[in-house]
């Protein structure tokens, strides 16, 4: 099974809602990781603010921090190989690294089956 490890910059929460303004990229990324899990990828996420030990335990991650400070974050590893530094990738990129097929999120229609509406 593919394992994806995400090393986040220090932040209060992984959807980023704790700041005075929400970054939609963070909320999207959290949702994409959740989707990736549903596709059978093992996802691990570490926040520098909460689990700094996870960062210093991996020589490559520690070295990246020492060289570039937090600019190297988020750092992403697939099966212990660094695949990306300093950006939040799209769902398509994540999917291609992990060898799963990206599907666009389906639009949700509520109240579709009103009798006689002809929608179903």
């Amino acid at each position, binding site marked *: 099974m593919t394992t994806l490890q995400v090393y986040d910059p220090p932040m209060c929460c992984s*959807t980023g809602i704790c700041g005075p303004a929400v970054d939609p990229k963070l*909320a*999207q990324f959290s949702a994409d990781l959740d989707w990736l899990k549903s596709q059978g990828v093992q996802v691990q996420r570490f926040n520098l603010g909460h689990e700094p030990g996870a960062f*210093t335990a991996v020589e490559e991650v520690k070295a990246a921090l020492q060289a570039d400070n937090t600019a190297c974050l988020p750092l992403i590893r697939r099966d212990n190989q660094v695949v990306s530094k300093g950006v939040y990738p799209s769902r398509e990129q994540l999917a291609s690294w992990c060898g799963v097929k990206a599907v666009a999120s389906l639009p949700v229609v509520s109240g579709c089956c009103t009798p006689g509406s002809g929608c179903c």
Partner: protein
Amino acid sequence: MELIERATRNLFFTGKGGVGKTSMACATAVGLADRGRRVLLVSTDPASNLDEVLGVALGGSPTAVPHVANLWALNVDPEAAAHAYRERMVAPYRGVLPDATVASMEEQFSGSCTIEIAAFDEFARLLGDPAATVEFDHVIFDTAPTGHTLRLLTLPSAWEGFLQENTTGTSCLGPLAGLQAQQALYRDTVQALRDPERTTLVLVTRAEPSALREADRTSHELAALEVSNQRLVVNGIFEASDAYDPVAVAMARRHADALANIPANLSSPPQIRVSLAPHGMLGIESLRALARGDQSPPVARTTPDAPPLPGLESLLDELVAQGHGVILTMGKGGVGKTTVAAALAVALADRGFPVHLSTTDPAAHVAETLAGEHHLLQVSRIDPQAETAAYSQEVMDTAGAQLDVAGKALLAEDLRSPCTEEIAVFRAFARAVDGGADGFVVLDTAPTGHTILLLDSALAYHREVTRQASGMPPEVEKLLPRLRDTNFTRVLIVTLPEATPVHEAAKLQVDLQRAGIRPFAWVINQSLTPLAVRDPVLRSRQRDEQMYIREVVDEHAVRAVIVPWQAEPPVGRAGLTRLMSQRREEQPV
């Protein structure tokens, strides 16, 4: 006192600031200790004055109180606890990771949530872990002002639910890893709080309608959280001994009226009534007298009278000079910030300026206070629940817009965290201040501890802004510079001529100055000094006031004004207008 005769292991004292809950907690502790019980007295109030009342410097571990065998006390300082917590998390990485990285980690632990969590950790340790207090028979908590107390007390169940339901592994609860390890401790804390055999909640209030309403609200909210073993202490009840002293007669009547109209639900907890003491409650002997139910005899004081001070109206010319701006009334809860703010708002409107009066006080009753309408005066309230709902909706509509169903659920989960309210209220505050660019905005802020947290987050946000300016509402970016601009923002520190309120106001001023905010004036509220009184208890209190008025004038205030105690409740346009002047002859009987 009945509290002493049948005391449970844990006792909590809660109530609006200035109602005397510290005195009650201390008197109960001294009373129990004098009966040979081993007692630990704990303050979790950021604005605690336990040191002052007991006459000993307290710290984070139990300190023996001099002259009282069996009594120990400690003071939980949330800031210090947060600092220790931050050090525990960050220190191992100094020298391992680059300094800039360590600094960015520290930044994450500088928020108000960390302070809350750290304070709560201490609180849970004492209540939830029997080993921590095994050597004591009673643990007495002198807790923070009501809003803060409620947050502390409601957090266990909020978190309990949150930790159980949060299945995605993401969370806004800051250092969640630390919390999960504590889950059992928090569960025990909730259980201890709810167990009537172990815990008594003492609601301390005064014989005033607003204080009684506040106690009623607290009683309800805690009963809803299944904290059911409650007692009500009505403190400072005055009975006139001189029928020819109009002030005394009016004060006694106001107290009797308030007691006659006690909210219906508030009559269910057993009630304890305590008379108005002739002096502020400081020192062990006055606490012993209070525990016995005696009144300590009036003592003649030799302090010379304080110099006469002008009334609130003397500030108006300067306040209106700019034609717009923000007026903030600040101070400990219960000192009358709301009333002073409302009086100034009415006075500005009377001078022909459009005014927006807004309150962030969780116990807001501005609308009630301002029964009469004025066409230039707009009154609104920052309602934490409504602000949180609106903010959550805004986030779902913007950041959540392009997410799929699972993504939306994840975001909604994070929005249920306790920090969301803090942010939502803060943004509403910034919005209200923004209105001061065009007209006058008068804000009465929440109690001291909360005010400091708000300003603190303003600072943290300010630092965030200078690093990255994306997506920040402009009014938030402008907030701190505006609060620091003495031409834009006028901060009025409101206090009472009593020991604790003056010292706490002085601490608030120091905190404001650290944030680069300089108060414009001090308002000494509800003073007996400008009034002619004969009743011996009131005369004694009037003499007591001189020392504190002098302290304000000599040590703290650039400008000070005085507002006399009001024979009639200061409500409506007429009642509020009376607050502006301080002429003696104006007091009706």
